[in-house]
């Protein structure tokens, strides 16, 4: 028995055959186990490929993800080395206690770590005016405090707000518009960048 070529089977699967060819393929598939299995395999592959198209995110969303890297991507010539801090704790990832109902949006607390430096960040939403307050503290593994350390909030590749830490390493950005911010702390060892997000649902 002469088998149907892969091309013939794919045409059949894609519906690119005439009625007469279709009947001939179906007759052959009834009698040929090999071709029938190959047809199943090709059909499954083609349908998975087609299905995948429905999972394509909008281009601007992908670009948003790509742009997240911008502050690290463009180090200033001769500037400080840059480090991305790891997120070690986020209340957003913690499940609510059983039986608890959420009333309003609770503050989000995050802890970032870069080497021996911890950066504690709390983000609180102001429901009334669609703004957030972001407070934090830069802490060292030693007893040292990072006072008078420049702290910046960047979004869309630009520095939006600047402040400095106080004597115990605390800093605050009050009532800034909701956005996704890159928070940078300029330490003598280098610049630490963290990524703080405030989504509508967080």
């Amino acid at each position, binding site marked *: 028995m002469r088998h149907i070529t892969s091309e013939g089977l794919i045409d059949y699967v894609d519906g690119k055959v005439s009625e007469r060819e279709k009947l001939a393929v179906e007759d052959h598939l009834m009698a040929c186990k090999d071709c029938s299995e190959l047809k199943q395999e090709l059909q499954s592959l083609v349908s998975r490929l087609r299905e995948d198209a429905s999972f394509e995110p909008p281009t601007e969303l992908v670009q948003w993800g790509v742009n997240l890297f911008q502050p690290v991507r463009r180090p200033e010539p001769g500037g400080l080395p840059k480090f991305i801090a790891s997120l070690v704790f986020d209340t957003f990832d913690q499940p609510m206690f059983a039986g608890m109902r959420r009333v309003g949006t609770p503050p989000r607390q995050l802890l970032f770590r870069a080497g021996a430096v911890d950066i504690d960040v709390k983000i609180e939403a102001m429901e009334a005016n669609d703004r957030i307050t972001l407070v934090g503290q830069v802490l060292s593994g030693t007893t040292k405090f990072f006072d008078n350390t420049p702290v910046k909030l960047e979004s869309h590749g630009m520095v939006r707000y600047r402040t400095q830490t106080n004597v115990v390493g605390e800093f605050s950005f009050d009532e800034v518009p909701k956005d996704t911010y890159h928070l940078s702390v300029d330490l003598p060892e280098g610049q630490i960048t963290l*990524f703080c997000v405030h989504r509508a649902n967080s």
Partner: protein
Amino acid sequence: MSASKYKSYTDPELVSMCLKGDGDAWEALIKRYRRLIYSIPVRFGFENADAADVFQAVCLKLLEHLHQVKDDRRISAWIVTTTTRQCLHLRGLKTRETTSEEELQEPEDPAINLEELRLVTEQQQTIRDAVEELGERCRVLIGLLYFDSTTPSYDRISEQIHIPVASIGPTRARCLDKLRTMLRRRGFR
């Protein structure tokens, strides 16, 4: 160097490059996994805005956790777990229902089982990875035939990949055969 040249790099290689400040490596990583990330909230039945929210959250988490995933050969598994958690969390926030960890184990749609979701999304990623490893002509042809929502005509495909219209069918068959063979080698049926 454009991000397309990064396609041959493994995930750990890309992550190492990202950690050294290489933005093109990050772009390649996001583009490699964009459909995997987005497919999960879509399968959960979220609307576009919520699916976008999950996508953004996962991109951020990936960036924040680059240090932890740098030695991980299977970032896809990390992405599936993280995205699924994010979907469950978002659903919990949206419904504002009382939830314990156990109660958040199943998606709202009873037709979706989490283990099945993990299997399906990982299989889908295996196919995407295999497509990426095909030669350029096959990759572009499969993209035009099966991923392009505008369903381009054979004439347009012919112009784009510089092969005669009559060769599109046989080329497509060869490309799908190659893809099938690659997937079989990876134990995919």
